[in-house]
C-alpha cells in the first residue's frame, strides 16, 4: 500500500493534466498521472494507424499553447518544435480563391482582388481584434476571482481582473467606447460583427470560420464572435493569431510534457483508467482504477471534463446537490468530426495556383455565411451537414516527419456533426457513410484527391467521447459562451480549480480559460494546488 501513495495524482494524461503534473513535479512534488488509454496525450496525440503515416488524430494545429509554458517546461529540450503556417485559403466554386498570407500586406493585396473596401476594412478589423486579444491575454493566466466572496484574495482578484479588462497597462487605458466594444464583442454573433466591417461574402465566410470551429453555435448565434477571439488569442512567436504545426504531430506536445514530467521524477501510467474517486469525510483521498488498484495522494487533480469528473467517477452522494445540478446543466455539445487521411501524393486543388503559400495552411470551401448557417441547421436536426464547413490542412507540406517524402497526411476537421445522430444514432455503417460524404465534398475541389487515398480514419463525436473521453465529443470540454466563461467556468462558485471535495481539483478545459491546446487551465490549477500546499511557484508563467 505504501508504494501507492503519492503527493498528487492527476487523472488523465491530456495536455492540461500533463502541464499541471509537470509544474507540480518541478516544484518538488511526487506526481503520478493515470491515463485510461494505452497511449499518452488525450486529444493531443500523433498515432500511426497506417504504416508510414503519422496522424494528429484529434487536435491538429497549435497556436494557443502559452509560450511561457513551453519555456518553463523546456518543451524544446524534450522535442517540441512549432512550424508556422504559410497561409490559408478558401476555394470558390467559380474556380477563384481567397487567401491570407503570413505577410500582412500580401493579405491586403489578396483581399483587394475581391473587394477594395474590404482590403482596407481588414486593417481596422485586425486592429480591433488584436485589441481584444491584448485585453484577454493577461486574463488567461489568472485564476478568476469569486465575485461573491469578500476574501481579500477575491477582492484584489476582482480589481485585477477589472484592471485588465480596462487594459490600463497594456493599452494605456480604454475609453468608454472601447469598453462597450469589448462587451459587444463577447456577446455578438460573428455575422453581425463582420457585417460592421466587410461587404464581400467570401471575406466574411473566410473570417467567420474561426468563430464556429468546435462550437455548437452557428455564425448567426449570439456569442459566436467570442469563439473567433478564442481562436485568435494565441500566437506563434509574438505573431498574435498565427497558427502552426507541432513538428511530428500534436503528440509531440504531450510527449515533450511527459519528458519534462519524467525528468522531474513524475510518472505517467497508461492503461490505468480511474473509475472512482475515493472520498472520506468530504475529502478526496485517492482513486480506484478499473484494474482494481487503489492509489492514494494528498491532492487529486482531474483532467477529465467536469461532467465526467463529477457525474461518472465521483459518488454523487459526496457532492452538494446544487453543484451536481449545475454540472448536469453544463453545456458540452459535440458538433465536430474529423477525417485523417494518408495520401499517396499531393492532391491538386486547381483553384489555388501552384506554389501559392495560401495553400500552405488551412483550406476551406465555404463561400458565404449563409452556407455556414445552413450547415448548422442540419446539425440542429441531428444530421451531419450536407454542405459542411471544413478546416483542412496538409501538415506534411510543412512537416517532413509526418510521412515519407512525396507522401502526405491530410487532416480534415468538419463542422457540423451531431453527437446524437437522428434516426437511430451512430453505427459503423453511418460513420463510413459520413466519411464518404466528406471525401465526396473535397473531391469537388480536387479531381485527383480520391485516387491518392491510401487510408482514412473517420472520427465522429461518438469516438471523441468513447476513445478520447471528451463528453459528447465537445472539443473544448464545454461550450465557450459567456454563461460558461471566466468566473462562471465550469460553474459559478467553483471557478478557482477547487471542487466541493477538499483536496480535489480540476485542471481540464472545462475550467477557465477553456478549450484548445493551451495548457493554461493546467498551469493555473497547478498554481492553486501549490498555493494550498504553501509551496512557492517559480517560472515565467506565474
Amino acid at each position, binding site marked *: 500500500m505504501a508504494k501507492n501513495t503519492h503527493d498528487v495524482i492527476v487523472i488523465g494524461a491530456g495536455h492540461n493534466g500533463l502541464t499541471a503534473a509537470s509544474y507540480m513535479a518541478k516544484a518538488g512534488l511526487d506526481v503520478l498521472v493515470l491515463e485510461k488509454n494505452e497511449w499518452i496525450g488525450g486529444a493531443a496525440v500523433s498515432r500511426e494507424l497506417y504504416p508510414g503515416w503519422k496522424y494528429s488524430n484529434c487536435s491538429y494545429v497549435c497556436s494557443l499553447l502559452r*509560450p511561457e509554458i*513551453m*519555456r518553463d517546461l523546456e*518543451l*524544446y529540450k524534450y522535442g517540441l*518544435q*512549432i*512550424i*508556422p503556417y*504559410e497561409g490559408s485559403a478558401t476555394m470558390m466554386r467559380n474556380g477563384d480563391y481567397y487567401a491570407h498570407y*503570413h*505577410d500582412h500586406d500580401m493579405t491586403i493585396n489578396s483581399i483587394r482582388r475581391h473587394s477594395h473596401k474590404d482590403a482596407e476594412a481588414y486593417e481596422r478589423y485586425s486592429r480591433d481584434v488584436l485589441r481584444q486579444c491584448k485585453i484577454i491575454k493577461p486574463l488567461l493566466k489568472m485564476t478568476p476571482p469569486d465575485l461573491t466572496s469578500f476574501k481579500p484574495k477575491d477582492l484584489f482578484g476582482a480589481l485585477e481582473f477589472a484592471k485588465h479588462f480596462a487594459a490600463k497597462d497594456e493599452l494605456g487605458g480604454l475609453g468608454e467606447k472601447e469598453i462597450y466594444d469589448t462587451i459587444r464583442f463577447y456577446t455578438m454573433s460573428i455575422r453581425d460583427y463582420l457585417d460592421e466591417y466587410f461587404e464581400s461574402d467570401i471575406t466574411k465566410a473566410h473570417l467567420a470560420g474561426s468563430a464556429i470551429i468546435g462550437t455548437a453555435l452557428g455564425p448567426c448565434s449570439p456569442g459566436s464572435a467570442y469563439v473567433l477571439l478564442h481562436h485568435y488569442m494565441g500566437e*506563434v*512567436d*509574438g*505573431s498574435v493569431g498565427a497558427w502552426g504545426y507541432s*513538428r511530428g504531430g500534436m503528440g509531440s506536445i504531450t510527449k515533450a510534457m511527459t519528458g519534462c514530467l519524467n525528468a522531474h521524477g513524475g510518472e505517467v501510467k497508461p492503461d490505468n483508467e480511474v473509475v472512482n474517486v475515493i472520498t472520506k469525510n468530504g475529502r478526496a483521498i485517492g482513486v480506484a482504477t478499473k484494474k482494481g488498484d487503489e492509489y492514494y495522494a494528498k491532492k487529486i487533480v482531474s483532467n477529465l471534463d467536469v461532467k465526467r469528473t463529477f457525474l461518472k467517477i465521483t459518488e454523487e452522494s459526496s457532492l452538494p446537490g446544487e453543484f451536481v445540478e449545475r454540472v448536469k446543466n453544463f453545456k458540452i455539445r459535440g458538433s465536430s468530426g474529423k477525417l485523417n487521411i494518408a495520401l499517396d501524393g499531393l492532391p491538386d486543388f486547381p483553384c489555388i495556383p501552384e506554389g501559392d*503559400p495560401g495553400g500552405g495552411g488551412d483550406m476551406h470551401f465555404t463561400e458565404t455565411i449563409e452556407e455556414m448557417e445552413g450547415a448548422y441547421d442540419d446539425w440542429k436536426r441531428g444530421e451531419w451537414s450536407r454542405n459542411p464547413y471544413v478546416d483542412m490542412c496538409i501538415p506534411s507540406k*510543412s*512537416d*517532413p*516527419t509526418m510521412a*515519407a*517524402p*512525396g507522401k502526405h497526411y491530410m487532416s480534415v476537421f468538419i463542422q457540423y456533426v451531431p453527437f446524437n445522430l437522428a434516426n437511430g444514432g451512430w453505427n459503423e455503417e453511418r460513420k463510413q457513410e459520413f466519411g464518404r460524404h466528406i471525401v465526396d465534398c473535397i473531391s469537388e475541389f480536387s479531381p485527383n484527391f480520391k485516387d491518392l487515398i491510401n487510408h482514412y480514419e473517420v472520427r465522429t463525436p461518438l469516438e471523441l467521447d468513447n476513445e478520447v473521453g471528451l463528453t459528447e465529443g465537445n472539443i473544448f470540454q464545454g461550450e465557450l459562451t459567456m454563461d460558461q466563461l471566466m468566473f462562471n467556468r465550469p460553474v459559478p462558485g467553483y471557478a478557482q480549480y477547487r471542487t466541493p471535495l477538499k483536496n480535489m481539483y480540476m485542471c481540464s478545459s472545462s475550467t477557465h480559460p477553456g478549450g484548445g491546446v493551451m495548457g493554461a487551465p493546467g498551469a493555473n490549477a497547478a498554481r492553486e494546488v501549490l498555493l494550498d500546499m504553501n509551496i512557492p511557484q517559480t517560472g*515565467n508563467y506565474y
Partner: protein
Amino acid sequence: MTNDLRFTALKKTPFHSRTSLASRTNKYYNWNGFTVPTEYSTTELEYTAARNGTSVMDLTPMCKYMIKGSDANRFVDYLVTRDLSQMEDNTVAYIIWCNEDGKVMDDGTIFKFSDSKFMLCCAVKIYNWLHDSGEGFNVTFEDATDTTAALAIQGPTSCSTLKNFGADELELLKPFGMKEFHINGYEVLISRTGFTGDLGYELWTDPANAENMWDSIMEAGKELKIRPFGMNALEMTRIEAGFIQTNTDFMAAEDTLRPVRMRSPYEIGMGWMVHLNKESYFVGKQALKKEKEKGNSERCLVGLDIDGDKPAVGSVIYNEKKEDIGIVTAAMWSPTMKRNVALASLRRPYGIKIKENIFAEIYHPEELEYKKIWAKCKIVKRQFFSPERRNKVPADLYE
C-alpha cells in the same frame, strides 16, 4: 559575377539570376560588396526551413583565400591561435587570428586539402594581411572570393536533399569533414560546416556551375521542405547557435578606430582556441601569454537568458546597484526554444565571478512610445541551441 555597368558598383553573385527570381520581397543587403537577399519571403518561414527542413543560402560573398606552397602548413599554424599541427587532410577547423597585440582580427574556417594547400574563409578582407604575415614563408595567396561560388545547405533534411542532388554516402561525412564530389559533370566540394548550429553543409564550386547547382538542389529538396534563406534568418540561427559575428559581437582589431574597443580572445569567449603551449610562435602569442598570466582580461562575452518575451536588442546591462556593466551585442526571441536570449559583452568580474542580479534595460517600442522593461538575466552557456542531430554520424535521413 560581372556587372552590366562599367563603373564600380555592388557585385552580383553567380547565383543572382536565381536568388533574385526567388525573392518575393526584393529586399537586398550589401555583404562584402555583393548584392544578396536580406529576406526572400518571410524571415520567420526562412528561419523555420533551417530548423525543420532545408535552407539554402548564397554564401559567395564570404572572403575566400587559397593558401598554397610548401610552407602552407607552417604558415597557417603561425597565423592562427589554435594548434593545427594535428589537423588531418580533408578536414575543416574553426579558427581565430589576432594581431601582435593579441587582439582578435576575425574568426573563420580553414579547409585543409593537404600540407601544401588550404582555403581560408572569413568575414573581413585579409588579403593584404596574409601577404604581410607571409613574408619569409614559401607560400602564395589567391583571393578566391570572386572565383568560388558557395552555397550553405543547412537544416535537418539537408543531408537527404544533398543525397538526392547526387552526393552519395554524404551521411557518413563527419562534422568538420569535407569531400570532393563529381555531380552533374562538375566538381563540388562539400564540407559538413555551417553557421546555423544544426546539421548542415557548405558547397563550393566554380561559378560556371552555380546556376545548375542551385536549380538541381532546389529540385532535390522539393519534397524536403527546401527554401532559400536570407541574411535576417541567418542572423537568428547564428545567435541561437551562439556563434559570434565580427563587427557585431566584437570589433575586428585592425579596423577598430578606438584601441580600447579591441578584444582579446579571452574577452569574447574564445580562450579555448588559444593554444599557448603550441610549440611554434603564432601572431599575438606573446601578448596573449602575458594577458593569461596576469589575468587582466577586462571583458567577457556571455549568453543571457532574459525574463519576458521582448528581445533585449542593444540593451545596456546593469548590476543590482544600477551600475552599467556591459551591453547586449545580439538578441532575439528564439522561436525554437521559446526563450528570450542574448549575447552580451560584460565588464569583468561580471559574467565570470559575479553571475547573480544582472539586469537588462529593454526599450520596447510601442506605437511611438517606449515601454521600459527591467528584465532579470540569467548567465547561461552561449551555445543556446545544439541539437543532437548536429553531430550525428551517420546524419539523419528522411526517406
